[in-house]
């Protein structure tokens, strides 16, 4: 062994801005443009190995790395929360390799990378929501072969999906799909919304923000441009419906948000709390300020 590693000049400082080299970013941006031009269509791209494992959001990370600029403010959530370990890890990664400003506030962010949730706070024009996608092919569990599913998409041959939903109704009396609930984008392509709860599906419809979906292991990118119609599949006599809770959030009292359930003692006592930590904290803060001002008025 002639050289030590250090002698060969291989150190962390050698990485490009936002980790990926510029050629790779350009290739990914081209794929994104194509995806935006054909909403819901899965564009194959030359996905790279990232320094985080497949399944940890490598598709989303590659998209974020390709679009993020020095003026951007990045928010990363996992399961709706900014402080889950993987969200922390990805945010740290970008703070390190791109030096961008990060935030936990949905309103402040220009780029939001997410796993399994859409923020409760409505998004606005100019924001980009980047989804981490494990299995981009909505028909995969019905047809494992890529050659087949690509043909089915090309021909809009989606009967197999309708049949699977029908079978669910026949067996359970309702569509039992809880997350990764299939949607029809712009009346053309059936798309996997990634494993977000179906609770979030209505937020995808005509959203003013740009939605980008990245699947690193499967090497696919797809997109929903702003204001694009996104319809959750259903039947006239079994319309699409979202989850409801009889409880409200224990911390902020919201009855509108997606609630996480926690078991807090050995007796199995449950607490329900907003999955979107930023939304919950904003509400608590607003309530605190309101209480203060009321107190001030009384004095």
């Amino acid at each position, binding site marked *: *062994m002639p050289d030590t590693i250090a002698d060969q000049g291989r150190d962390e400082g050698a990485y490009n801005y936002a980790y990926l080299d510029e050629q790779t970013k350009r290739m990914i941006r081209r794929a994104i443009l194509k995806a935006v031009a054909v909403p819901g269509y899965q564009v194959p791209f*030359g996905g790279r190995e990232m320094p985080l494992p*497949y*399944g940890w959001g490598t598709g989303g990370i590659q998209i974020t790395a390709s679009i993020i600029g020095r003026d951007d403010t990045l928010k990363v959530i996992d399961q709706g929360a900014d*402080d889950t370990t993987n969200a922390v890890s990805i945010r740290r990664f970008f703070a390190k390799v791109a030096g961008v400003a990060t935030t936990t506030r949905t309103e402040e962010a220009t780029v939001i990378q997410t796993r399994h949730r859409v923020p409760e706070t409505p998004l606005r024009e100019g924001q980009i929501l980047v989804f981490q996608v494990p299995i981009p092919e909505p028909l995969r569990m019905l047809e494992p072969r890529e050659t087949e599913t690509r043909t089915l998409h090309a021909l809009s041959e989606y009967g197999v999906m309708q049949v699977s939903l029908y079978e669910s109704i026949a067996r359970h*009396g309702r569509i039992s799909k*809880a997350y990764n609930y299939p949607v029809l984008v712009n009346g053309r392509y059936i798309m996997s919304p990634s494993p977000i709860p179906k609770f979030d599906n209505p937020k995808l419809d005509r959203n003013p923000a740009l939605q980008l979906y990245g699947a690193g292991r499967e090497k696919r990118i797809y997109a929903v441009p702003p204001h694009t119609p996104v319809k959750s599949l259903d039947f006239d006599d079994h319309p699409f419906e979202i989850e409801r809770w009889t409880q409200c959030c224990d911390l902020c009292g919201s009855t509108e948000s997606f609630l*996480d359930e926690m078991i807090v003692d050995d007796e199995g006592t449950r607490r329900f709390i907003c999955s979107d930590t930023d939304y919950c904290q904003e509400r608590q803060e607003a309530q605190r300020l309101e209480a203060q001002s009321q107190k001030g008025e009384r004095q």
Partner: protein
Amino acid sequence: MYVAVKGGETAIAHSLDLLADRRRGDRDIPEVTLEQIDAQLSLAVDRVMTEGSCYDRALAALAVKQARGDLFEAVFLLRAYRTTLPRFGHSRPIDTSRMVAERRISSTFKDIPGGQVLGPTFDYTHRLLDFSLMADGERPIAPTAPVDAAQELPRVGDILEREGMLEPPPPADSGAPTQDITRDPLAFPASRAVRLQNLARGDEGFLLALGYSTQRGYGNNHPFVGEVRYGSVPVAFVPEELGFAIEIAEIDVTECDMVNQFAGSHEVPPQFTRGYGLAFGHSERKAMSMALVDRALRAEELSEVVTSPAQDEEFVLAHSDSVEASGFVQHLKLPHYVDFQSELVVVRTLREEVEARRAKDASLSALGQAAE
């Protein structure tokens, strides 16, 4: 109370510190050096280079050390480094008939031009723990015959091919530049070049199991080891500004030419067909498994019926990569509370409906009994 998911940042920092500490282990024991790993765990380094698709012994040794000997993790480390490297171009194809072979055997002919060379192999070791390795002390240097670097070693396959007994090597994909699977996404159907690239970096265990399955009747292709050879070959590169090839490196590779039975077709009389395997370093198990699976994947091309997993291109190529597989299996450790919560809500609703239906049925039948 609400602390379960808080403090992720500190927890990660402590976890990284702990990992580094455990990697080092007992401080009274000298730290292992990259030179030691390269020299004394050389087959681990070979495997990491092969599946990491990067021929660099020092970096592979570093990866093995950093990964605490977890070779999957080491492969991943090397891959994630490799993918950041700029591409200058493609080397010329290596010519393994110019190999300075340390080992070369054929199981199809008793003697072959250039001879059979046993070389260093586990094949004829008795698997008895060698307790003398527990003690320190120098070991004698093994005598070797002088190497004739100029001697060409014709491949057994080429000899059979001249006779027409073995099909010529499948033509390289017609003039078009060979696709690079590390740059372009996998598409089906895949060319043979793409398949071989995929298999070359595929997980050894996965390919071993698939190759084994063909031997047990799941897509049997009657294999013989035409030849396995291991040694060093020069790598040549044509720099654009020079316009002629220069040798830039010498690498160790293991090559396997598998010779398989083929009944023939309307156009072609019965002859033998090929399966090919190549791995960095000394990796015979990998090269042989790869050759078996390569041949199995040629089923369609040779008008054989595709009935078994090893012959199924989409099944094999989509699942061979250990970095992808390991990541996706282990990502199940990441939080899934939201998905699980949705499922909880759905299952609870379904159960309530079942309960309600049962209660209704029970009260109806109670009513019926009362009426009787």
